[in-house]
């Protein structure tokens, strides 16, 4: 199981991609996991319903930070419809961790996705159902 930490995760944890904040931004959403104190803030610039720039900041465990780092790489150029399609399955594929049976770590991995979804739905003026994030 500590293979989980090899390679990609530790690499992204040490050298996160797109780390920082955007100012101005069209979306800036912070999410927080009270169980462990992890925090992710995700900033987006959006032009014509497409994500043109992205940055994240935060602190927490390697899984939450590395997942955020990998996710930001994916987001550039994505349109908002694609964001709505993008879910838990896609993120888990992306980070390649077997977290199905590990609800605690799953929450860590999904924190940046939650920031993304909540932020984008808010930007679109729509409501999000919590189930979409389970």
């Amino acid at each position: 199981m500590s293979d989980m930490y090899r390679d990609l995760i530790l690499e992204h944890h040490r050298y996160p991609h797109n780390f920082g904040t955007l100012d101005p931004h069209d979306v800036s959403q912070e999410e927080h996991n009270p169980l462990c104190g992890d925090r992710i803030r995700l900033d987006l610039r959006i032009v014509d319903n497409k994500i043109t720039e992205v940055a994240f900041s935060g602190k927490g465990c390697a899984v939450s930070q590395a997942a955020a780092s990998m996710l930001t790489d994916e987001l550039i150029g994505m349109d908002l419809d694609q964001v709505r399609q993008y879910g838990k399955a896609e993120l888990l594929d992306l980070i390649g961790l077997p977290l199905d049976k590990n609800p605690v770590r799953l929450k860590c991995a999904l924190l940046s996705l939650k920031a993304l979804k909540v932020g984008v739905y808010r930007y679109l003026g729509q409501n999000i159902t919590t189930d979409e994030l389970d």
Partner: protein
Amino acid sequence: MIKAPFDVATIRSQFPILQLPSELPVAFLDSASSSQKPEAVISALADYYRTTNANVHRGVYQLSEQATFEFERARGLVALLINATHHREVIFTRNTTEAINLVAHAWGGSNLRAGDVILLTQMEHHSNIVPWQLIAQRTGAVLRAIPIDSQGRLVLDDIDTLLQGVKMLAITHQSNVLGTINPIAELTRKAHAVGALILVDGAQSVPHMPVDVQALDIDFLAFSGHKMVGPTGVGVLWGRKALLDAMPPFLGGGSMIKTVTIESSTYADVPARFEAGTPMIGEAIALGAAVTYLMDIGMANIAAYEHQLSAYLIERLDEVPEVTWYGPPVGADRGAMAAFSMTGVHPHDIAQILDGEGVAVRAGHHCTQPLHVALDVPSSVRASCYLYTNTHDIDRLVRGLSKVKQLFG
């Protein structure tokens, strides 16, 4: 002879307590109080403690992951059994009683105003009366009850009047004394028409027949694991997600919170909001095994078999002229149980003499004092069946009653 849609002998062989070597094996006719458990459930419980035991929802280590997975899987199985739209609508409680108290307290405490009416029936179990009395005392709400007729059915002639001012109709699906199966779907329509919610006490229905919360269109359902071949210490409250989402917490503590300071807290989403502290992990997992066991046999098959038992039980009791049984005649709205009296002999004496013959029945008011007032007897004897009951058990009951007559004749 009864033609079973399944093989009762095989089913009996799966219940260790029915296989105990004994000169006088037990004819267990008290399943309405608490059912026996098949080996599959007992092993699931013991295996959990032998191989998987750990606290849930919090650990990142493998035992805890596995325990959490199995605990949540049990929740999913319960949701499947009652056709809930979402597993998050299933809250684990200790028993039916706690489930009803939860609704009375959390929903009632924030929704009932002075003068609001809670409508019960005269056949309710104390567990579906006293919680409402306690919240009524706090809120000024008042209780009212639908009466029963001489056949133990609800008198619904004045239901529109009875429903005036009602905010909650709390009603048993099947009476634990009369065996009466109440017309829930119809009553739900009437309750909803006046803006009332309906809570169904499924303690005696969920174990014995298919119960579909969506088809019935009800708002809350409460039932107990120990009456449905599961262990003690675990029960279920099902509620519509939107209602549960809007309810404040009941018990406070670990797991039901988002954030806590000394002064105040914010609460977790359902179902966690209503599951404070370490839950009955092993018991919920074993309840999952019980649900699997029942669903493998099929709730409709169980209901069909019990329907035959019901007819046989009444037919045989009718052979004893001293016996007066209560409840509706054999038919679709009667479950496989019978409460009865016997001229000149006190229920306790009957039960004790039957015990001497190896026949286990209950004597008393069966937690239904208002019903016994209506029946005009202080107590009664009750024989109740389940999927492992056979006609031989019922024959032994009737033979035991001859012994009673002989001793007290």
